[in-house]
């Protein structure tokens, strides 16, 4: 008996070995994080959604420039301001052979809003999905919403029949007793199928031969690995073991470019890195100033802004892999962003502003900063501290791992911060998301602008945000957004720093498209 198992093992070994040498178009890549769950609704996180975007598809998808394209829906029109009609693609099949129909869309719309789903922001609760025929769905709103479908590229359509048959209707949640099938296997309509999924280690994909779209890639197999250690990830690319790795740490970009067979693909990411100040409490929690809150004075906020030498941060800390920004959204995502300019770097002016506000001798303030969340986050905070020291502000820096940092500064920690660094990418790739999450007034529990950690509040901005939400005309909408941003930038609700850069390490054998949202779509990857 034992002997037989051994023989089987040898056979399996030789087979496995034979396979690996025959696969010329196997594309191997690594990312720093893990693929957490295969259930497309259990985590609203760029990497997980991006990876699953190769396996599942939404009604829409985004191209290399992030423009919205038809995917499972071939077209849509706004029949009346509160009724949208989506025409669904015919002849599409899920990986298991089931047909894609309007029932699947209605089912997915219910499931994505059910308890345990982390993607409830994709569709508002009061939106109704009505099946018209097998390939037409009507979406009925209670008020107009021009950006209804903006996040639908990452709202995967799942197969109703398969999900129900496999007892996976409930979204996989950590409080469950056992794993459901949908968290271990995938059944999408996308360009790739998942062959095996070794949780937290490797995931193997192969092309979906029955995909409705023409495949632009030439891959026969894809192997994804998680490599958390920066040095190892870069080494694996340099040694030729992997075809692509991301992210490449900024200090290794030169090394990757100097190597003959690899290049670092860089570009601005959509994420805006900014500083925020507590403008809500009557006395700062971490400061030498007692009895009042200096950040309530716009002059103090302006002084902080003008004390920051953003070009120095770009050069020294980010090694040129950042784009200084003047507003709280990526210029890539807002047409009128060029109308905004940063406050000048002017330490003397800053000192004067502080003196005008009554702080001629400066003051002390505690700063919270993550050290493993954004590119060189802690180094940025240190640079900011040094720059503020020049205008007499003594910063007590508290840099912590993201798990501890977010527990302290977010609503769950009671917004326990006076001065902080944070990054934000609007999930919908639209300014309204920024206005409602970062600029809208909030109460102490976080109702309203939940991620407006500093508690900046101007009812005019809230009113404008509401108008933006309901305005269907793009030109008028952009004007309203501009008005809102004009108020927030002149009142210095936050101090925007920069768009951090993306850096992907790619072998010269590979051609691929880098998307600014850091999602990696494999359907256009070619290897030679």
């Amino acid at each position, binding site marked *: 008996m034992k002997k037989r198992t051994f023989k089987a093992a040898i056979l399996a070994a030789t087979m496995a070995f034979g396979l690996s040498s025959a696969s010329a178009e196997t594309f191997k890549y690594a990312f720093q994080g893990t693929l957490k769950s295969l259930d497309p609704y259990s985590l609203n996180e760029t990497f997980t959604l991006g990876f699953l975007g190769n396996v599942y598809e939404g009604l829409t998808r985004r191209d290399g420039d992030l423009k919205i394209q038809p995917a499972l829906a071939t077209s849509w029109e706004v029949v009346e301001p509160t009724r949208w009609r989506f025409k669904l693609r015919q002849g599409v099949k899920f990986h298991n052979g089931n047909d894609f129909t309007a029932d699947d869309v209605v089912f997915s719309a219910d499931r994505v809003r059910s*308890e345990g789903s982390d993607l409830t922001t994709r569709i508002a609760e009061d939106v109704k999905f009505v099946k018209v025929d097998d390939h037409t769905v009507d979406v009925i709103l209670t008020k107009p919403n021009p950006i209804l479908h903006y996040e639908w590229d990452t709202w995967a359509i799942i197969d109703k029949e398969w999900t129900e048959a496999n007892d996976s209707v409930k979204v996989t949640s*950590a409080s469950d007793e056992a*794993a459901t099938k949908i968290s271990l296997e995938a059944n999408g309509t996308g360009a790739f199928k998942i062959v095996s999924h070794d949780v*937290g280690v490797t995931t193997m994909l192969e092309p979906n031969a029955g995909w409705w779209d023409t495949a632009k890639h030439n891959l026969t197999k894809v192997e994804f690995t998680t490599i958390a*250690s920066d040095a190892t990830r870069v080494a694996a690319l340099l040694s030729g073991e992997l075809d692509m790795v991301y992210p490449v740490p900024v200090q290794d970009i030169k090394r990757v470019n100097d190597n003959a067979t690899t290049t670092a693909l860089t570009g601005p990411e959509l994420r805006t890195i900014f500083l925020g100040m507590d403008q809500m409490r009557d006395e700062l929690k971490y400061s030498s100033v007692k009895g009042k809150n200096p950040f309530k004075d716009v002059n103090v906020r302006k002084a902080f802004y003008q004390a920051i030498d953003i070009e120095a941060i770009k050069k020294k800390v980010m090694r040129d892999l950042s784009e200084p920004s003047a507003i709280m959204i990526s210029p890539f995502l807002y047409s009128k962003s060029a109308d905004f300019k940063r406050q000048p770097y002017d330490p003397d002016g800053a000192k004067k502003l502080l003196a005008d506000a009554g702080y001629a001798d400066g003051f002390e303030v505690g700063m919270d900063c993550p050290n493993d969340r954004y590119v060189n986050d802690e180094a940025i905070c240190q640079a900011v501290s040094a720059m503020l020291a020049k205008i007499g502000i003594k910063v007590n820096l508290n840099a912590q791992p993201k798990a501890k940092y977010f527990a302290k500064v977010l609503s769950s920690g009671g917004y326990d911060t006076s001065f902080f660094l944070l990054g934000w990418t609007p999930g919908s790739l639209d300014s309204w998301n920024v206005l409602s999450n970062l600029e809208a007034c909030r109460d102490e529990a*976080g109702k309203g602008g939940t991620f407006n950690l500093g508690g900046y509040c101007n009812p005019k901005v809230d009113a404008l945000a509401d108008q933006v939400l309901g305005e269907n005309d793009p030109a008028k909408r952009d004007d309203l957004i501009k008005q809102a941003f004009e108020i927030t930038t002149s009142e210095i609700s936050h101090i925007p720093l920069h768009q951090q850069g993306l850096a992907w390490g790619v072998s010269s054998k590979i051609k691929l498209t880098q998307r600014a949202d850091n999602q990696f779509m494999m359907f256009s990857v070619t290897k030679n």
Partner: protein
Amino acid sequence: MLAFMIRRLLQSILVMFVVALIAFLLFRFVGDPVNQMVGIETSVEEREALRERLGLNDPVLTQFVRFIAGAAQFEFGISYQFKRPVAQMISERFPATLELSIMSAIFALLVGIPMGVYTGLKRDAWLSKIFLTVSLVGISLPTFLIGILLIFLFAVQLQVLPSFGRGEVVKLGFWSTGLLTTSGLKALILPSITLGLFQMTLIMRLVRSEMLEVMRTDFIKFARARGLSRRAINFGHALKNTMIPVLTITGLQLGTVIAFAIITETVFSWPGMGLLFLQAVQNVDIPIMAAYLMLIGFLFVLINLIVDLLYVMVDPRIRVDSKQAL
């Protein structure tokens, strides 16, 4: 004897309880798990609801009792990040860690013992001095640096060995092994050396000092007087007598090797329990952390228990002492 065993077992249970208590207290300081489980746009209400469902709002004592009750039944729940049973995930990762640990122990023995014998016999040879200097490096350089240096040399520059992962693995029932494929064996080399270097140094120094000790004893002098060959004396008599402490130390160190594989596994992206644990710490995945800490605690307790019981069997003096103690 029976009383001694029962007392030992009770002590072991107490140790496990303390491990559980300390582990549980640690979790209060690693951060908020809910923030790691949801995307940033998830609303406050949904976060609160999740916290409630996970029982994180219960009083600390209730949570601890629940944790102990689960742990006693080897029930550690579902991983917060991966939404899969923790016991299953750990058992999937266990073979990788055990293979790596055993290979590194073998490496440490196969290289450490000859080096120890040589430096013990030829104290003044220049090669001995080189060995001792190298061992000093092995003991003083941190593991992750050695790992990165090895990767740089053998994977990036020479391109002969892989820099990460286990290579091709073969499933034998529940056990996944990398020992049956070329790529699997190649993948084992660098991590084993990295993990085993410290143990190798330890064994080398131990063998050396034992050899120096034994070579001075009377029975070696008698063996010489009997006219035995150098070889027979050195390996047949001297080395045999140094082996007992070496094997004890190696056995005891195996627990340490498994526990400290965390760093090596991270550097080489080795899919073992240590890597799983480190990812769990970063993501505040309490169920995985708890299960891992309990398992490592259990391994140490088990090894110590076995060693203690063996001592009792081997050495009658301990038995006498323990009777008096009663």
